[in-house]
């Protein structure tokens, strides 16, 4: 039986506190997911600067080689990655849902899938391959999970709820090989006209006070808001029924 060809596409992240280059958290999870696949042949590929020290951190996860499609760090990595994927024909493409530190648009999985004609699943936390079929567990908000089945070939974008990546060990990181492949640099002309500014924190909205009069604004700020239906003078059984019906209506209980 042929071994499943899997590729993990990795990018360089930046540490939230120090800004130093490091593994992109979701890409590292993608590599972790790839390493966990039995009987798969995993390749790691990166488009960018081969001298970036963070790349060694990926090698420290245990794979002997990281292919780097050499191009300026600021360039658009998608064309290079596509070109590589068309040549190498991996059946399963793993990458993080989002990069960490650049445009972070989260478009890469979709663009790759669209161009390659693969299926795409995002926010994956776990995958299993049986024959040519993939079972993917997808993370939903509030800790919920969904099962998705897909056929190979497929792009699986790994989410933050996926298992944490393994430790990057110094020995393998030092010994690992960075295989450099030069590619045509792709310049992102559109983005060159965009203005980049330091971000200011956007705190969560506190109150939407649409009140028009001063008195209403006053009340909105100082009094307890809300107030809905009140049920009184009913038996516990009836009370339970009212509550239960409400929960069902709002799909808080589904059973």
């Amino acid at each position, binding site marked *: 039986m042929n071994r499943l060809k899997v590729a993990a596409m990795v990018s360089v992240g930046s*540490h*939230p*506190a*120090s800004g*130093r280059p*490091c593994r992109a958290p979701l890409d590292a999870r993608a590599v972790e997911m790839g390493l966990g696949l039995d009987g798969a042949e995993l390749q790691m590929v990166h488009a960018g600067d081969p001298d970036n020290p963070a790349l060694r951190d990926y090698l*420290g*996860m*245990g794979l002997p080689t990281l292919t780097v499609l050499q191009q300026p760090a600021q360039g658009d990595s998608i064309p290079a990655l596509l070109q590589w994927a068309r040549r190498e024909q991996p059946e399963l493409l793993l990458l993080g849902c989002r990069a960490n530190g650049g445009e972070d648009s989260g478009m890469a999985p979709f663009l790759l899938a669209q161009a390659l004609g693969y299926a795409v699943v995002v926010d994956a936390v776990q995958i299993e391959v049986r024959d040519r079929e993939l079972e993917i567990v997808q993370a939903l908000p509030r800790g919920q999970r969904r099962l998705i089945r897909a056929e190979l070939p497929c792009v699986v974008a790994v989410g933050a709820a996926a298992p944490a990546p*393994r*430790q*990057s*060990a*110094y*020995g*393998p990181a*030092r010994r690992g090989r960075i295989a450099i492949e030069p590619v045509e640099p792709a310049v992102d002309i559109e983005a060159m006209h965009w203005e980049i500014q330091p971000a200011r924190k956007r705190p969560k909205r506190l109150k939407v006070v649409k009140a028009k009069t001063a008195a209403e604004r006053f009340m909105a700020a100082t009094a307890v808001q809300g107030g809905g239906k009140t049920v009184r003078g009913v038996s516990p059984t009836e009370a339970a029924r009212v509550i239960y019906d409400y929960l069902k209506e709002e799909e808080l209980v589904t059973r």
Partner: protein
Amino acid sequence: MTQWVLAVLVLAALFLGLLGALRRAALWRRGRPAPVPLLRGLLAMPRRFLVDLHHVVARDRYMANTHVAVAGGFVASLILILLVHVAGLDRRWLVWLLLLALSAMFVGALFVARRRLGDRPSRLSSGPWDRLPKSLLAFAVGFLMLTLPAAGILSAETWGWLGLGVALLLATWGLAETLFGMGWAGPMKHAFAGALHLAFHPRPARFGGGRSTDLLPLDLEAPKLGVETPQDFAWNRLLGFDACVQCGRCEAACPAYAAGQPLNPKKLVQDLVVGLSGPGSDSGYAGNHHPGRSTGQASGAPANAIVPQLIAAETLWACTTCRSCVYECPMMIEHVDAVVEMRRFLTLEKGQTAGKGPQVLEQLRATDNPNGNDPTARTHWAADLNIPTLAAQQSTDLLLWAGDGAFDLRSQRTLRALVKVLRKADVDFAYLGTEELDCGDVARRLGDEATFADLARRNIATLSKYGFRRIVTTDPHALHSLRNEYPAFGGRFNVIHHSALLAELLQQGRLLPKKPIQERVTYHDPCYLGRYNGETEAPRTVLEMLGVATQEMERHGLRSRCCGGGGGAPVTDIPGERRIPDIRMEDARAIGAGLVAVACPNCAVMLEGVVQPRPEVRDLVELLADSLGV
């Protein structure tokens, strides 16, 4: 005839024992090479045995005396037996001497037997070790019976054939245990391996009253980093393991063992003995196990990976590197070195640091501090103190090394108190501010030599830019790294612990405590200050000058019990039955202390983590600052 039989017996035992010893030596030689001055070591051995080792053994008076009697008696007997019974030198005084030596051995062996067979401490291994006193008695009795006639006290016929047979049997048994067993892994192996271990000890600086506690640097270019298999250890390390007498003093001293974590240092050494002499299993082991584990599951061979077949990873990660096992070991075995060497392999080659270790190491690399704090937040604790930075003024008398306590609210209290006290004493000091990096202690104890080396080199480069006379730190771990471990990386600095500085300032009268301390105080010696740096007096001097009558806990000074905060143990967080700091707090409660004075940020955090109600925990300098009213 008897004489002839006896000579053959002795010579045969000697020969077979020697054969075994050579085989044993061959096992050790499978280890990595280690440069050892062979002759100088051998020459130094007797002194090391009689002085240095005796110091350790003498902490247990009973055993020390017994050992002098038995070992001295045995060695003398053996020489005299060779002279009297083998060489046939029939000098009366020699025979009397032999009788004397045998009697000493007999009496000593009786005491050994009493210790072993009576109300024995549980730390002692049984099995062959319980047989040993009997064997020694057999030896002594057998040769006494055979020598008495030679002395002319009894006639040759006294025993009759039967008696003579019994005597010969006893002597044979004794010779088998001592000489044959010495070479072939009987309990007496310890004498032979132990003597050579003393001669070829990996830390010769420990002898002659010296101290050697720094971890040795690892060649990061080596094809394999750290110890994977028993034969990855240096040969003299293997020799050291073989010297173990399974007395269990390490076990009794080990905080992780006491807390029910899966580490028994004695068993750890025995596991390595199984490994170096394997293939084999630990089924012959007759002592206490790693807590929560049972005998018969561990197996190993010289070229097989140690973890997990021979030793579970948790066993290695439970160690707090407190060095109390090393300090207690009468055979001067270096358990901590072994643990760290095995951890190095797990971390550097396998990427299998336990617990939160991976995150801590990753953060250290990314931010130069173990919790991933914004590096610029390193000076937040001092925002209102206006401490000059060396970047601004280039030189100072005293450099304050803040350590990573700078990020921790608890430790900041200590640092702030120190700054106030230094100001009060009019000391000229400055700090590195955001130029300071983690000293690398945790990385190194967790086996990440690469990160340690990187941090050490960068810190040394920074320190080398500036002028200062001394470095002071509140953190004994930083003290140890900077003082003892940076020299190997080219950084030689005069580093003192704040307790020493405070004692100095108090003694010079530059600080005059005012308010007395009402609480009943005990002082907890940090491992990295006491055992690692030998500093047990200065903190007590400070307390004394504060007018505190300190109450000592049972284990204090160089034998202090660890708080559980060293060696990355809080990071790996190996579960046990209890928490180490709880045990230490029990020690304090047992003497009715209302306040535990500490001198290490790790100790402060660990001991304060014990649930209330408990004695208060204050650093020395906090007490001093209170008393000075600053």
